[in-house]
Structures are given as C-alpha cells and as structure tokens.
C-alpha cells in the first residue's frame, strides 16, 4: 500500500490481510467513481461489514463492486447495502450474507436504477420477514431456509423475469411454502414443478402459449399447411441454445420470443413459422453423404435464401421484418488469418441476396448473388439440387486455408428466424451424425399400469393474489365400488308413505310450462293485442298482419341435474336426536331423490367426492346420465362410505364439465354437504371457501345453476358467501333430510 492512500486506509477499520493487498486498487477505483462524500460512506460502509464477523469475503466484494454500482445507480446505495448487511447479521439469517453480496452486482446491472434496486431490496426483505420463523415466543429464531438459495438464483431469475415478475414469483413461493422449509428450498432453488411453472408464467416477451391459436391460423390460412407445434424452453440450456426445427412430430418453436430489432415477438413467431412452412413447401431433401460439412453449410444457406425468395414473391410485406432480423455482417470484420470465416462469408452472401442495398464489394459475393438470381428467375424458382451446385461452386471458389480452423467466427452470422435444416438431408449410410443416435433409442418405456383414469388437473383460486394457481389440484375419477343393491330397496320400502306423498306432488308437476305461442294465423284463441294492431294498420290503409291468433302448448321439462355428494369423514358423525349417522341419512335421502327424479324423467347424475390434500381429490362416479336408477346404481349407493376431507372446488369443476356437456334448457348442480370446504393441507379457512365460490361463479357464468343443501348448523357463517342468497338451504334437523331433499328438489324445479 502506498502512503498516498494512508489516510483512507486509516478510515477503513478492518484488518484482513487479503484486503490489505488490494486496497490501492479499490480506493483508486472509488476515487475515480465517487464524490468525497461517497468515499466517506464507502469506507464507513466497508468498516461496518467488516465488523459483522463473516470473514473477509463480504468486505472484499463490497470494496470491489460498490464504487461501480454507486456510479451506475446512486451513491445512496453504499449506505443501503451496508445497512442491509448489518441488519442481516443481527438476525438468524447471517448465513445469507455472502450470497447476498454476490448477487448484488448482477442485480444492479439488470435493474439499472436506484428505485428498481430499492424495490428489489423490499421484495427480499419481505421474503425474509415471512420465511424466518420462530418456534417459541415472538423472537424470530429460525433462519429462512429459502433465502440463501433464492439469492443464488437471483442472476438467472432477473435475466428471465421483469422485476414485477420476480416479485410475483417470490411472493408465490413465500405464501405457499412459508411453513414448509423443505419445499421452500425446492421452490426457491427452481427444483419444484410449480416453481418452474410460475417462472414460465411470469416470463417476459411473447409467450407461445398465449398465441398458439393465432399461429395455428397463420400456418393454416397463409400456408395451407397443418402441423403440430411443439414449444421448447430457452430457459434451461445455457450453453447451446436450441433453434427451431421440424420433423414428423411437429414444428419446434421456442416458448417465448422477445421483441428484437423492432420486430414484435408475434411477428418473430410468424417469420419462423413462415420460413419452416416455406421449406415444407419448396424444399426437397437431398442426399447428404457426398458433401463435406462446409459444403452442407453452404447449401443450407443458399436453400434458405431460395425459400425466402419464393416466400417474398408471395408475401412481399414480410421483407421489412426479414431485413430487420437478418444479421448484417460487416465486410472485412472477419480476419482469415485468425479465424475461420466460412460462416461470415455465407452470411454476407445471404444478406446480399436478401438486401439489394447491401453495399458489399467482395467479387465472389457479387458474382454469386447474380448466379442465384439467374437460377431462381430462369428456372421458375429453381430447386434444392441447383442450389447445392451453386453452393459447392461457392465453397470451392472462396476456400481458404483458415476455414479449417476450429475458431469459427459466429458473431453476426446467425439468422434468428431460420431453422436448423435437418429436414433437407437424407443419409444413406448411418454416420456419426447426431441424428444417428435417435435410431437406437430404447424401446418405449412400458406404459405405467394404473387402475383408473389419469388424473385431471384443475386450477385453484387464490384470493390473496386474485389469481389461479395453475394445475393445482389433481383429481382422480373412478367408479364407486358396489355393494348389495337390496339395501337401497329396503330404504325405499321404509319410506313408502313418503314416496306415496311425493308421487302426488310429482303428478302435479309433470305437465310443465304452459307456453303461449303467439303470431299464429290459425290458433285456439284471438290474441287481442295483435288483433288490435292489425285493425289499426288496416284502418290506416297499411298491410295488416294476419297472424292475430295464438295457441297454447305444453312444453316438456328439460332439466339436467348433477348431484354432488360430499363424502368426507364428518359424515360418520351421529347428529343429536338421531340414531343414524349423517351418512346413512344422506344415503336414504339420495335414494329417495334419485327415485323422484327417475319418476320425473329428468337427466340425472350422481357423484361423490372427498379429498386428502390437493394431490389426491377422489371423485366417485355413482350414476351417469345414461344410466337408469337400477340395481347397478343402487349397489353403488349402498356402498357409500365416508372418509378424508372436503376440497370442494376441484370436484365442482370436474362435475360441471359433465353437466355442461348435457343438452338441456336448465342445468342444476345440487351439492349435498355437511360442512365447510376444508382440507388438511390448508390452514386458511377462507382460502377454500373463496375457491369454492369461484368454482360456483364459473358454473353460473357457463349458464348452470348451483344449489347447496347444507347439513351444517353453523353454515350460515359462510354459505351465503359461497352460493349467494337463495342458492342454498340449511337443514337443521338432519333426520328430516330424507323427506326434505326430494321436496326441495321438486320445489326448485317447478
């Protein structure tokens, strides 16, 4: 250390020898970038970090990186950072200090302003605050498990997400895994599936998923072509970015495109697909074995140019986007002494073919542009074969010793919208090409054995963020096991008197909806309104309407019903003043109701559900719309059993997709439950209630009615929130259920 900086060194209260060695450089950098006040803050900040006792590394990062950050953002960052580190060292999260310091420079580079940086700190603070837990008392004692892993992911996350997206992603993890350290780590280290899914959702740019239909239409309408699109992610391969291609399984496109050079993401998708569609239309595969790798690259470039030429003849408007995206290699940029210029030359040729104002002087390029145009214009678009001939000539004419160099110049030669052209080669002999590996893939893994349908995934509404959690609930559907159908007959027998009474009501119900048919030329009676109008028309000399009669007709009932039964464990309770469990009473009630509806002839299905966390919602099929209330169905009813919890939203969503498929004027979903929605993996009562409400809202937005019959005496607290006024009844005396339920149904539908 030179004496020149001694008085600065005195102000830095830190005695690590590693610091000693580099202090000169640090302080020079600081003096260059900071004001006097800034240098003061810088040194006192470093002293503060030195005092926390976390080794020399945090201090050296601070000393090394902060001057630049302060210059880039604002000098106030010096104090903010040292203060934040100090606070951290006083909390259980001291371990996170090194990764915190490490992520700062990258974060500053990505975020760019002090305000953004401040937001970023706020987000981290809130996350730490919420995930640092205490076991006893109010002092936070357990460190946040997710925080250090999160900090390690910060550079990657910020490269993928806007700050807002980052915030949403972090908050989602905090909210859902606050109480579960293990899963917290999985989430914040980007290991768990929903963490990746959330990341995907928050990504910037134009997402493939949002535009799938548009792109499908684009291919169909402008190229009269049909194919599947298979999106791949750019998020996970850092070394070798995949590029678009197509094969018999479909067209592979990236899952997201940012705007580039003034071309919007959706237009980049369109160009990529147009390029591929052009290949599909005009390229014929040729045999690859006789060409050297360089020749092949050249052929691919010229063939790309050819299909683009043909494409532009058809759709000249695409040219401006192509020009914006095609790289513009600068002549002479590549030094053949040092690197291989093969790609650079070809990119120049390709640019020159596309852009008449290329301004290149290279005689080969000019000559071959001419040859290219001569070929395509004289031979009606030419052919892949002819391009191969020109390309081989080009490689022969322009060959240089240095082309063989492993150091190939890639900069400014990659054409963003082009695919990898694997489709244009046929291989006679299997060589050491990558494709050869595909042929030796193992036989398909054997189908997993399963005893039912694959799970269906449904989203769940999170009222905290007012968003859907994607694919949150896994629902398994199966046919309800059967037992002795005679049991149900016994029940029906027991309620014979009630059945008789019901029958009377049903007979009154049957002729439904007396409908008036107006505007008839011939009808059963005169429709006075219309008749008066016609008379007035006539008196005025206008053409009178002769259809002045009306008639009546009976309109049949056209109702589809879905009865959804809550089969949670609480059904095994025996209510006060009754000898039967709620389950038995429900069984009786449902049997009677089924009998009633069968009598009325309405379309009718029964299903039951219970849940054991979001990963296992069971949905039991008891009666389908096409089944009658016969012994099979009775058998299933007789086997009704109770267990687990009540996660209602997913079950309602699943049941509604069956109900929705029915053709009927009125569709009703009846839900019979004995308590509020709950599940063992949810602590927040309000969460499942609001999700159920959302599911019910979805029902009504699709034109289906919902009605809840609750056996919970305390249901008044929440049930109106879910089903709305008039959308439910609470049955206080559960033992009355068997007679109440069918009556309720008939009242509802008459």
């Amino acid at each position, binding site marked *: 250390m030179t004496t020149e900086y001694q008085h600065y060194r005195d102000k830095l209260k830190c005695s690590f020898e590693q610091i000693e060695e580099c202090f000169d450089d640090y302080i020079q950098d600081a003096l260059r970038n900071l004001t006097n006040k800034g240098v003061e803050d810088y040194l006192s900040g470093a002293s503060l970090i030195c005092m926390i006792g976390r080794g020399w590394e945090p201090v050296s990062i601070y000393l090394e990186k902060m001057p630049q950050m302060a210059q880039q953002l604002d000098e106030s960052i010096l104090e903010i950072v040292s203060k934040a580190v100090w606070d951290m060292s006083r909390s259980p999260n001291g371990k996170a200090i090194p990764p915190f310091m490490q992520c700062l420079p990258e974060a500053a580079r990505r975020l760019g302003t002090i305000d953004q940086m401040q937001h970023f700190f706020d987000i981290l603070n809130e996350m730490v605050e919420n995930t640092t837990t205490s076991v006893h008392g109010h002092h936070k004692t357990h460190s946040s498990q997710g925080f250090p892993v999160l900090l390690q992911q910060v550079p990657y996350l910020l490269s993928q997400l806007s700050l807002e997206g980052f915030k949403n992603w972090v908050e989602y993890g905090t909210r859902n895994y606050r109480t579960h350290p293990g899963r917290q780590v999985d989430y914040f280290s980007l290991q768990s599936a929903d963490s990746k899914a959330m990341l995907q959702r928050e990504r910037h740019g134009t997402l493939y998923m949002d535009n799938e239909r548009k792109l499908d239409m684009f291919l169909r309408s402008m190229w*009269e072509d049909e194919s599947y699109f298979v999106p791949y992610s750019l998020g996970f391969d850092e070394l070798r970015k995949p590029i678009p291609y197509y094969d018999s399984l479909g067209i592979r496109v990236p899952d997201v495109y940012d705007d580039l050079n003034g071309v919007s993401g959706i237009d980049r998708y369109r160009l990529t697909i147009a390029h591929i569609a052009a290949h599909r239309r005009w390229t014929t595969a040729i045999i690859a074995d006789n060409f050297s790798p360089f020749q092949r690259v050249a052929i691919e470039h010229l063939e790309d140019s050819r299909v683009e030429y043909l494409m532009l003849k058809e759709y000249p408007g*695409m040219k401006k986007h192509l020009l914006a995206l095609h790289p513009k290699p600068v002549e002479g940029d590549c030094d053949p002494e040092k690197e291989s210029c093969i790609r650079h030359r070809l990119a120049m040729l390709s640019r020159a073919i596309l852009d008449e104002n290329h301004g290149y002087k290279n005689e080969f390029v000019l000559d071959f542009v001419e040859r290219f145009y001569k070929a395509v214009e004289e031979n009606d678009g030419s052919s892949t074969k002819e391009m191969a001939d020109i390309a081989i000539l080009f490689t022969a004419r322009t060959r240089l010793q240095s082309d063989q160099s492993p150091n190939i110049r890639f900069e400014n030669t990659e054409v963003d919208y082009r695919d990898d052209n694997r489709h244009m080669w046929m291989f006679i002999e299997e060589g050491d090409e990558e494709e050869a590996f595909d042929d030796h893939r193992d036989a398909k893994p054997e189908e997993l054995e399963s005893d039912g349908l694959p799970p269906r995934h449904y989203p769940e509404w999170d009222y905290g963020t007012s968003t859907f959690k994607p694919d949150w609930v896994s629902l398994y559907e199966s046919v309800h096991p059967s037992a002795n159908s005679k049991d149900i007959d016994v029940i029906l027998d027991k309620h014979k008197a009630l059945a008789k009474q019901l029958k009377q009501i049903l007979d009154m119900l049957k002729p439904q909806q007396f409908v008036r048919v107006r505007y008839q030329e011939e009808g059963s009676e005169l429709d006075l309104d219309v008749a008066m109008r016609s008379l007035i028309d*006539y008196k005025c000399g206008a053409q009178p309407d002769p259809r002045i009669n009306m008639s009546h007709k009976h309109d049949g009932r056209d109702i589809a019903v879905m009865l959804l039964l809550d089969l949670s464990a609480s059904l095994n309770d025996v209510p006060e003043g009754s000898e039967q469990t709620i389950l038995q009473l429900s069984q009786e009630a449902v049997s009677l109701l089924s009998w009633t509806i069968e009598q009325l002839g309405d379309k009718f299905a029964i299903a039951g559900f219970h849940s054991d966390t979001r990963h296992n919602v069971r949905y039991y099929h008891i009666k389908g719309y096409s089944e009658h209330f016969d012994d099979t169905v009775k058998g299933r009813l007789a086997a009704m059993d109770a267990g687990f919890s009540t996660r209602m939203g997913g079950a309602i969503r699943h049941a509604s997709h069956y109900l929705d498929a029915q053709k009927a004027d009125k569709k009703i979903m009846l839900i019979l439950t004995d308590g509020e929605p709950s599940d063992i993996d949810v602590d927040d009562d309000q969460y499942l209630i609001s999700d159920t409400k959302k599911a019910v809202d979805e029902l009504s937005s699709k034109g289906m009615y919902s009605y809840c019959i609750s056996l919970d005496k305390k249901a008044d607290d929440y049930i109106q929130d879910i089903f709305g006024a008039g959308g439910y009844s609470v049955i206080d005396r559960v033992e009355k259920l068997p007679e109440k339920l069918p009556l309720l149904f008939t009242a509802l539908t008459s």
Partner: protein
Amino acid sequence: MTDIDIEQYKITEEPFYEAQEDEVALYEAAYEARLPVMIKGPTGCGKSRFIEHMAWKLGKPVITVACNEDMTASDLVGRYLLDANGTRWLDGPLTTAARIGAICYLDEIVEARQDTTVVIHPLTDHRRTLPLDKKGELIEAHPDFQLVISYNPGYQSLMKDLKQSTKQRFTGLDFEYPDSKVETSIVVKEAGTDEETAGKLVKIAHTARNLKGHGLDEGISTRLLVYAATLMNKGIEAKRACRMALVRPITDDADIRSTLDNAIDSIFG
C-alpha cells in the same frame, strides 16, 4: 290481371357476370325445359347476380323474394284484404310470377319455414299449377314461368334444411368462389381496379377461406373484395381499405383478426 306492369321486372342493362364454368349453358337448357333450378353456394359468390344475368340474357322478367322465417304461405301466394267495399284479393309475388310468366327467384329459401316452402310444390312438378285455396282458383302457370331458389348450405343451422320432397323437385347448380384467375378478372371489371391489386385482394381472400371451419363461418366473399377495391378507388390506402372491407365485417374474433391483418400486411408489403 292485366294491370301488372311486366316491364318493371325486366332487366334492361346487362349485369356483369363472368362465367366460371358451363353454368350458363346448363341454366339455359334447364330453362328451355322449364325445370326448376336450385342454386347453392356461399354468400357473395354471385348467385343473385347469375340469376339477374340469365334473366337479362333470356329477356324474361324476374321477381325476387327474400325469404325470412316470419314469412307465411300467404306472403307468397297472396291474401284477401278488407276494403271499403268488402274484400279484395291481392296476389303474392309467386302468384304474380306464375301469371305473367316471370322467373320467380326465392332467395335464401331455407330461411322460410318448412310449411311455407311446400306451397311451391305443385308449381315445381309436372302439374305446373298453383291452387289458391282461399280464393278458390287454380292458376295454370304461364309457359314462361320458372322457379329458382337459392340457399347457402354453409352457415345455416342443422335445423334449417330443405325437406327431401322439396329438394327433389329441383335441378341443382353448385356455386363456389371462382378460381383466382376468374375472381381477379371479376374484381378488375367490377371495381375498375388494376390487375395487380385485384390479384393481391384475391390472395387475401384465399387466406381467409383457408380458415373456414377453424373459427370463421365463411370466408371473404367476392362481393367484399369488390368493396375493398372500390374503397381503394376512392383514395383509401390499400391496407386500411382491406381491414375495413375484408376483415372487420367477417369476424369479431381477435385472433383471427390479427392473423388476417398480418396477411394483409404481408401481401401488400
């Protein structure tokens, strides 16, 4: 019944019509034999124009009735009206046509209710008569009378289809949008635009027709192409004219709109 002015139904100037195939000869043969003709095809492909053209060519009057679902049999055959002296019979368009020997053209026949369409039955077979049961009169059709119906099999619902008994009284001509070359020349002649622009318009129409059944009920019709060309003649910039005449009328679907807008940009450059 001499007070009907036949001249008003005659077409005096030649309506422009570009034949796609041999439909003119086919129609002439059918008319020669007075066979009823049904013309099927998507909207705006030139069905009505074809009939006008043929009526002009044959020098016959044509009475056009646009059918709708509120139309009754009386609206076709006629009805009694009250007036100061009692009642008076008023012929409907079908009756008039049968009396004066006109071509009666029922446009979009499937829109009419099925009980209405059966009144045409006696006119369309060997009888060639029209009984007016309310009036107690049996009209023998004029030797020149011919019945032509048209409908668009594409967009109607399954509920709206002709009865077999009705269908089997007609000879049929299938109309499609003309092929690019013919359609281009139609747009050129009809709107007075240049060949190149017309060709581009036709290309846009083809992109939209590829989407039929994938979100579009019906592609862009020749009629709309003529509209677009007309707007351009009025000095509207090509892309704007296409958006106004070709895209906005046919769809409310944002995805389709953006796809077609992109096609317009790509084609007009």
